[in-house]
């Protein structure tokens, strides 16, 4: 395999890389020109052939998703660009919006064309105010240049893009919660079926794609599905933005081929662990993924399927590194607290279970734990999120995957670092 050359972030270090003129100077919007001469089904097929999988967290094949849009409907179709990046340890979409907004816009227009959509939304996280202003400018530039609006680039295709700012809820990054929020309602995820591709925004067919997913699309069109598939593992190929944070010397975003080893990411790209400390554990894909022990982490490639085999997931590729100084019980409580705070409160297990976990872990940390608590944590997490069994397809006990997102990491902490939890128990109780 030849050395990987960045695709999505190729130009981010150049001045004014966010402007339309710059983007055009490096071949921007040529993919769009090409697409406007294709029939939409061909575009979908090309993306399907590329095996592009969603970069938001679930890793669902983008082309397949587009294919779910009903062919014989009179309803308008919508494309929503999910820019509500809120997974702890993940900050890649923010970079793409900052540095390459037109790359993302081009991807959006192509996707919208493929599914026959004429109104598209960017649902951007409320806290990303700078990026919001930047996107507003980019969209205005695109309108001015006839890249958006009526008869795009002289074709018969029309598309409007609306930017909508979220109000800072983690759950609004879940696609149906996002759609509810976009409709002006409370961000409570919807029960499925119906799936958004059939009944989404305003009960019309809707596709929700992540910023990074859409940013890949122009490159697939320009260089072909087989080029894309040649990068990394065939079943989950392409360039990927890995976010390294936590106890590393050189935290940041690294664009690499899918399937790079986690060891390389941590010790080569991110420069290893400061002060010569030892690696202890890693979240491979944001805080919703089950943690890997140092041993597991050094022996795994960042590939969708391989991580599933390790009973965790690639998720949003937000790698959070913990070294030997990290107190795993405190870290676990921190994670549990985040999810209790962000639970939307709709489903019983998630609403009640997350708060129970926090109360129990807090008591444990404060020295009031009992040996029984450890077993209870397993039971509570299983009752919220179910056991990890990807072979059965979907797995949770709640409407949306939030239940799993809290259950898996918390469970993995206790499972893999049980001794540390036991050490928090008052001495006499351990003996008894």
């Amino acid at each position, binding site marked *: 395999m030849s050395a990987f050359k960045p695709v999505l972030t190729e130009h981010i270090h150049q001045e004014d890389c966010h402007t339309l003129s710059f983007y055009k100077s490096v071949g921007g919007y040529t993919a769009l020109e090409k697409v406007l001469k294709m029939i939409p089904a061909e575009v979908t097929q090309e993306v399907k052939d590329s095996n592009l999988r969603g970069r938001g967290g679930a890793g669902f094949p983008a082309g397949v998703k587009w294919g779910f849009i009903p062919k014989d409907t009179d309803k308008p179709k919508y494309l929503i660009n999910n820019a509500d990046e809120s997974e702890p340890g993940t900050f890649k979409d923010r970079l793409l919006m900052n540095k390459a907004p037109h790359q993302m816009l081009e991807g959006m227009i192509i996707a919208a064309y493929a599914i026959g959509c004429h109104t598209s939304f960017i649902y951007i996280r409320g806290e990303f105010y700078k990026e919001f202003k930047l996107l507003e400018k980019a969209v205005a530039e695109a309108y001015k240049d006839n890249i958006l609006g009526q008869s795009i680039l002289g074709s018969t295709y029309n598309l409007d893009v609306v930017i909508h700012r979220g109000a800072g*809820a983690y759950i609004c990054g879940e696609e149906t919660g996002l759609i509810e929020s976009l409709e002006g309602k*409370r961000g*409570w995820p919807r*029960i499925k*079926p119906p799936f958004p591709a059939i009944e989404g925004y305003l009960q019309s067919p809707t596709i929700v794609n992540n910023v990074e997913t859409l940013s890949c699309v122009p490159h697939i069109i320009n260089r072909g599905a087989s080029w894309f598939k040649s990068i990394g593992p065939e079943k989950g190929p392409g360039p990927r933005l890995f976010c390294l944070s936590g106890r590393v010397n050189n935290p940041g975003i690294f664009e690499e081929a899918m399937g790079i080893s986690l060891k390389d990411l941590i010790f080569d790209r991110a420069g290893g662990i400061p002060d010569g400390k030892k690696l202890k554990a890693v979240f491979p894909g944001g805080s919703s993924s089950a943690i890997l022990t140092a041993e597991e982490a050094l022996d795994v490639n960042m590939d969708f399927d391989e991580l599933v085999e390790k009973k965790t997931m690639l998720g949003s590729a937000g790698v959070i590194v913990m070294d030997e100084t990290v107190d795993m019980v405190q870290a676990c409580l921190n994670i549990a607290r985040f999810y*209790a*705070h*962000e*639970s*939307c*409160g*709709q*489903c*019983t*297990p*998630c*609403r*009640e*279970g*997350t*708060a*129970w976990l926090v*109360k*129990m872990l807090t*008591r444990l940390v404060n020295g009031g734990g009992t040996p029984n608590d450890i077993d*209870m944590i397993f039971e509570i997490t299983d*009752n919220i999120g*179910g056991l990890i*069994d990807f*072979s*059965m*397809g*979907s*797995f*949770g*006990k*709640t*409407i949306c995957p939030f239940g799993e997102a809290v259950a898996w990491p918390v469970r993995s902490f206790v499972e893999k670092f049980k001794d540390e939890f036991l050490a928090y128990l008052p001495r006499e109780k351990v003996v008894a």
Partner: protein
Amino acid sequence: MPLLKIDDKEFQVESGSTVLETAESNGIEIPHYCYHPALEVVGSCRMCLVQVEGMGKLQVSCNTFVGDVPPDRKVDGKYDMVVHTQNDLVVQERKNILEFLLLNHPLDCPVCDQAGECYLQDYSFKFGNAHSRFEEDKRVRPNEYLGSQIVINQNRCILCSRCVRFTQEISGTSELFVEARGYNSKIAVLEDNPLDNLLAGNVADICPVGALLSTDYIHKNRIWNMEQKPSVCQDCSVGCNVDIFSQKNQIFRLTARENQDVNGYFMCDIGRYGFHRFEEIERVSQPMARNGKSFDVLDWEEAIQKTADLIEKSKDKTAGIVSPFHTNESNYLLGLMMKDTLGTLPPITREEITYPSGFRISADRSPNLRGMNDVCGHLEEDFSSIIKTRDIRGLYILDDGVDRELDDTWKDILAKMDFIIVQSYAMTELAKSAHIVLPGLAPFEREGTITNDKGHIQWLRPSLVTIGDSKPDWEILMLVINALDKDSEHFTDLGEVIKNMSDHFSSYSDVSLFKIGAQGMALNGKSA
């Protein structure tokens, strides 16, 4: 039609029906909280989880639709879906959900009004654990007023969101919403938009636990002390089906009873709290005759004889006044007696209200205007001119107990009369001006049929015991008719009156109490 197997039973079901609906209508219990047949499915309580063969995780049965599957995907070669509601996985999951629901629930059943009709109590008993594993502090919150007549006990709330969806979808008023997030979520209203619409009382009915309470009923009684009797609301011509809860002949509350042909699942607060009207009413419980400015108490025999004598004296100059508040049978018999020289008391009308869900409060606030018109052959529209032209000197009034302000026309009419006989359960203005007062029954004591404004005929059944010497109104009329004409037919029960009535009016030809039953029937087989 798809073939569905639930546990060991097979069902041919309509394509697109849900597992929960099918189970419910076939007597298989699947516990649920957030699902309500009148409201949008949200699937959030997770109580109705069942196992569907071929699906990896448990499915919420409220949102699992049964449809035809291709032959190669049929389970066991013939089923389109196979569902388990009793296996270990499902039984355990119910325990888990109930455990979560009870974490912060106060378990104050001994002082909770819902006890005895509480789904949290019932399901915990049937499906839950015997003890709690929760060792932390429970969340404690104060009670709050959501509207002038609805209080919420936040501690008992399980956030099924039925009430929120009710105000969004049924009343369309959207006062209720969920405030805050996650564990801190609670049902709330905005200060300047309290839950004070006329359907507000329904939220207490549909609350599956004791969270939403009607201030009218709070701490008044226990469900097991009361008698529950099916009845029909008589506060407007929609005729909502209700259940009346009473103890020792005192009504404590009304709740809506399902009837898809009439009111769906709900009722309005006018009817719900309307029964209090009768608590303060001055009842007439004995036959009375005027003696100067006061009344003498009579026994029934005397009273009937006196009535008959008065009418006999000026037979052609006596008119009857029927009422849209009385049953078809009473009105019909008065029509027979007066040979259709009939008028009616002024109607009671208010604003007509229709909610987005189609739920309606009729402008006509009497229960039986249509029925009265149907079974009284000829009602004089311009009654006051008839009085003049026919020189009417006596009136037999079937009074409805509504305390009307009588206008000058009516006052003139009454002043002109030689005698006025009033059949009433209450000492109304009319009764006070009567020469003879015959004590009939109050609305919830009556039995008979009433016809709503859409032509749906319903059976009004007695919910309370008769007070004093009062007699059913149709029986009093029967006695008077028999006293006037010794050869007239004597009907010994209501069924005979209905039979006779149905012989006279073709639109009522197939009406019988048996056919009406608990859900009523449409006249001529269809509601207009």
